[in-house]
C-alpha cells in the first residue's frame, strides 16, 4: 500500500473518490485524511484489482475500484474468430473454474445454433461444472481464511482441490485450461474407472471438509473478524447486481440452476443454501454449504448418468470424430468447412446465462449468420460483484477491506475480460 499524491492519480478518479459535493482538494484531504492505494499488486486483492481508499484514520470513507489491469479484449477477439476457436479463451475468464465457463459458452452457442448435446454429454458437463464449483469454493474459502490470518485451511483446501484437478487432467487432458466442451458435446468420454475414483474422492472429501470447517467455525479470530463486517441488505444486494453465493448470503434464495433450469439440474435433488445476515461470515457459510450440495449433486450425476454418445451427430454444426475424418471423404469435407469457415448459426441473438461458482455468467451473442459472432458480450459475475465493494467497505476499518474483498471472491480474469 502506498500513500498517493496529487500527480499520481487521474483527476477524474480523485473526483470520484472525494464525491461530487466535496470541495476539498487532494492536498487538503491529506490534512486529516489520507488517500491510500491498495493494489494492483496487493496479495489480498486476488489478482490485479486496484482499490483507492480514502481514509480518516483507520476508517474507510470512500473507495474507488480501478479495473482494467487484466483487460485482454476478449469481446473484440471473439468478433474475429470462429465459435470453436473461442472455447480456449473461456478458460481464461474465471481461471479458478475453467470447465464451468466452457459449459456456459457451449450452451450459449448451442442455443444460438439450435442444437442440443446428447444426454450423456450434458451429464458430463454437469459433473465437470459441479467439480469446478467445488474447486472454486475451496479456493475461495481458503483464500478468505488466509486473508484474515488462518493459513492452514488454504493449504488443506488446495490439497483437496489438487485431487479435483487430477480428475480434470484425466478427463480433459489439462489441469487448468481444460477447453473441454465442444459445440454439440464434449471432447471425450469419461470412463467408469474415473467415475469410481470421483466417488471415492467425494467419500473422503466430506470427512476432510468437516475437519476444515471445524478449524474455522471454532476459531474465534476467524469468526469475529468476519461477523457483522461488510453487511449488505437483501434489497441492496439485488439492486447492485449481486448474483451467486454473495446474493444468497443476503437472504435471497436465487439460483439459476433452479430459476431457469438448464442441462439436467431439474432432475437433481439439492438445496439452495441461504443465509440472511449478509455479512462476510454468511458469505463463507453459503460457500461451505454449497460445497456439500455440490458433492451431493456429483453423486447423483454419477448415479444417473446414461450411456451413449458424447457428441451430437449433426455434420454441419458439430466436428466429426478424428478417426472418421481420416477415413471418410464426407467427414473430411465437413471438418474442413467447420474449422475454416465456422458453424454459421442462423441470424439472431441469444442471451444464455448459467450459475457459475461466482454467480451468473451470461453470454450474449449476436450472429449475422457468419462463422464468427458479430458481437459477443460476456456478463461476468465478478464484475457485478466488485461493484459492491465501495458500498461494503464504507465505514469499515482498513483491515476489514481485505476480509470483504476475500468474502466477495472476485476473479479478475473475468471481471476484466
Amino acid at each position: 500500500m502506498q500513500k498517493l499524491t496529487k500527480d499520481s492519480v487521474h483527476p477524474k478518479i480523485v473526483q470520484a473518490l472525494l464525491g461530487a459535493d466535496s470541495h476539498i482538494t487532494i492536498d487538503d484531504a491529506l490534512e486529516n485524511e489520507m488517500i491510500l492505494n491498495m493494489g494492483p499488486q496487493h496479495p489480498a486483492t486476488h489478482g490485479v484489482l486496484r482499490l483507492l481508499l480514502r481514509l480518516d484514520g483507520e476508517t474507510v470513507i470512500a473507495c474507488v475500484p480501478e479495473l482494467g489491469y487484466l483487460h485482454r479484449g476478449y469481446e473484440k477477439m471473439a468478433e474475429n474468430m470462429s465459435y470453436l476457436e473461442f472455447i480456449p479463451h473461456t478458460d481464461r475468464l474465471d481461471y479458478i473454474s475453467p470447465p464451468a465457463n466452457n459449459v456456459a459458452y457451449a450452451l450459449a452457442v448451442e442455443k444460438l445454433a439450435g442444437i442440443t448435446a446428447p444426454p450423456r454429454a450434458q451429464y458430463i458437463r454437469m459433473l465437470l461444472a459441479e467439480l469446478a464449483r467445488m474447486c472454486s469454493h475451496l479456493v475461495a474459502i481458503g483464500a478468505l481464511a488466509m486473508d484474515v490470518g488462518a493459513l492452514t485451511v488454504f493449504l488443506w483446501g488446495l490439497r483437496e482441490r489438487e485431487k479435483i484437478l487430477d480428475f480434470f487432467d484425466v478427463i480433459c487432458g489439462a489441469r487448468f485450461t481444460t477447453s473441454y466442451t465442444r459445440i454439440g458435446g464434449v471432447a471425450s468420454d469419461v470412463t467408469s474407472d474415473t467415475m469410481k475414483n470421483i466417488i471415492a474422492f467425494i467419500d473422503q472429501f466430506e470427512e476432510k471438509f468437516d475437519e476444515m470447517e471445524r478449524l474455522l467455525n471454532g476459531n474465534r479470530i476467524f469468526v469475529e473478524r468476519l461477523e457483522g463486517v461488510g453487511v449488505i441488505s437483501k434489497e441492496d444486494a439485488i439492486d447492485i447486481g449481486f448474483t451467486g453465493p454473495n446474493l444468497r448470503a443476503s437472504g435471497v434464495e436465487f439460483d439459476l440452476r433452479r430459476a431457469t433450469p438448464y442441462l439436467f439440474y431439474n432432475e437433481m435433488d439439492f438445496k439452495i443454501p441461504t443465509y440472511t445476515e449478509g455479512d462476510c461470515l454468511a458469505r463463507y457459510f453459503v460457500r461451505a454449504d454449497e460445497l456439500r450440495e455440490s458433492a451431493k449433486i456429483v453423486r447423483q450425476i454419477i448415479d444417473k448418468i446414461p450411456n451413449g454418445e458424447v457428441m451430437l451427430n449433426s455434420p454441419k454444426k458439430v466436428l466429426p470424430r478424428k478417426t472418421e475424418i481420416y477415413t471418410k471423404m464426407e467427414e473430411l469435407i465437413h471438418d474442413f468447412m467447420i474449422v475454416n469457415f465456422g458453424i454459421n448459426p442462423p441470424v439472431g441473438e441469444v442471451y444464455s446465462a448459467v450459475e457459475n461458482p461466482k454467480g451468473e455468467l451470461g453470454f450474449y451473442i449476436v450472429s449475422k449468420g457468419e462463422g464468427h459472432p458479430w458481437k459477443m458480450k460476456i456478463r461476468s459475475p465478478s464484475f457485478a460483484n466488485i461493484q459492491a465493494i465501495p458500498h461494503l467497505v464504507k465505514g469499515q476499518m482498513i483491515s476489514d477491506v481485505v476480509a470483504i474483498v476475500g468474502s466477495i471472491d472476485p476473479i479478475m480474469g473475468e471481471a476484466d475480460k
Partner: protein
Amino acid sequence: MKELLKEKLAKQFTTVQFEFIEQYDELTVKLDKSVLLNVCAFLKDEEGLEFNLCEDVTAIDWATRKNRFTVVYHIFSMENKFRLCLKVDVDESECSVESVSSIWKAANWAEREAYDMYGIIFLNHPDLRRMYMPEDFEYHPLRKEFPLMGIPGTLPLPKK
C-alpha cells in the same frame, strides 16, 4: 408472462409504439429512447412484473446501419423467473441515451463499460468514467473501425 407483459405495457403507455420480437423463447422489446426511463421504472415497480435485477447493459455496433448503435438491456424478474431484453436504437450523430443507473444501481458499471467500449454517452450518469481503458485513451475499442491489433502508440507507458 409474455402476454401479461405486453398487455401491461400497452395499457400503461398508450401512445408509445413497442415492437415485440420473440426468438429462442426470449422476448425482446424495442422502444424509443425518449421513453426508456419511464418504461424501465414501470417494469421495475409494477406489481406482477418486478424486474428487479439488471443483468447487463451493452451495445451493438452495426457499423453501416442508419442508427449505428443499439443499446441492449437484459433485465430479470426474480419473482417471475423471467428475462426480458430491451433495445434502444442510438444514432452516431447524437450518440447518447438516458442512464438507467438511477433505477438499477447494477447498471452503473455496465454503462461505464459500454461508454468505454463504444463511446455512447449515458446522460445523467453519476460517474461516467472509462471502465477498462486509461482515462486519456482516445478511441473506443469495440467499435468496428478500431483494428484488432490496436493502434500503435496510443497506450503510453507509465512515466517513471
